[in-house]
């Protein structure tokens, strides 16, 4: 098992431990305001004069703790779906090497939404800072976004940021360099329910 897989497994174990711990703790003792989703959406877009490449993943798992601001999410690389099979094959086999690095993860902190605000309907501007791990390489990311608190313990979070494949050790062969943007636009759309 390589380091990336160990880290991914550790992250998943942590998510599950949080869920397990909460399941057996009386609700009155839980001070944290925790939210989770397993149907988060990530979209990425690479636009060049040669072609546009985009993909969607609707199976992003994320946990957000409004008390501490801690946020984590994980996505299976093979769950990204493309319109064209060839693009999906190249994405998995040549660039993301998804057999070796099956998951992409983010671990960080949200500022701009307090635990009290997480109970009050409204839209809040937030800043997210943390480490994004793709292709086994972690890089710090800071971006802005919004979190909309709805009735019934639902929080909808949106954010966009840019990723450079080279920053994560993803090599683009010269022959297709003009087909793939140097900066990939990533959009995250999560709908959390209270745990």
């Amino acid at each position: 098992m390589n380091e990336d897989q160990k880290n991914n497994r550790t992250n998943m174990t942590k998510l599950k431990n949080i869920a397990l711990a909460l399941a057996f703790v009386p609700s009155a003792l839980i001070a944290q305001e925790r939210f989770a989703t397993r149907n988060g959406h990530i979209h990425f877009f690479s636009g060049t004069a040669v072609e546009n490449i985009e993909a969607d993943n609707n199976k992003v798992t994320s946990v957000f703790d409004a008390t501490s601001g801690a946020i984590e999410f994980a996505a299976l690389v093979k769950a990204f779906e493309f319109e064209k099979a060839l693009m999906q094959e190249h994405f998995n086999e040549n660039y993301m090497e998804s057999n070796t690095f099956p998951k992409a993860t983010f671990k960080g902190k949200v500022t701009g939404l307090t635990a009290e605000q997480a109970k009050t309907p409204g839209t809040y501007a937030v800043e997210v800072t943390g480490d994004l791990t793709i292709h086994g390489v972690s890089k710090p990311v800071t971006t802005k976004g919004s979190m909309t608190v709805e009735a019934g313990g639902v929080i909808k979070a949106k954010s966009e940021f840019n990723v450079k494949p080279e920053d994560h050790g993803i090599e683009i062969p010269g022959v297709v360099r003009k087909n793939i943007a140097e900066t990939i636009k990533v959009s995250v759309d999560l709908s959390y329910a209270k745990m």
Partner: protein
Amino acid sequence: MMNMKRSVMIALAAAALLAGGGTYAYMEYSRGTARADEMPVAQRLSAAELLQAFQNDEQAATKTYVGATEQVVQVSGSIRSMEPVGTDKTNVVLETGDQLAAVVCEFDNKDLPIDWRSGAQVNVKGICTGLLMDVVLVRCVAAQ
């Protein structure tokens, strides 16, 4: 005269090869992703067995059920819940006996049988993509 005829034949053959190659390249470039019912089934097992395999040894299960290239896994189980995902997809969550984890099968709504309900015993073919909190199958279709 013979030389000219030969040249024309060679030119025609080259043109046919180019056209054939170009058509193949375009079709390959434009090829959409295959549906799960257009591919052979690589593995058949229950939802509980699939989850257990990942929980016991995620790396080995990934090798077996996700595979190096896309492969179809057929799972059987009862429907724990059905959850809309956006406007055009639905998650069919299969019971595994583990309250905190399931096998989640993502269907395009057009492929989702209209009579499926929570509690129904179903068979699903899908592309297994691995384990997060649940085992995730995408591009699912109903199986016999």
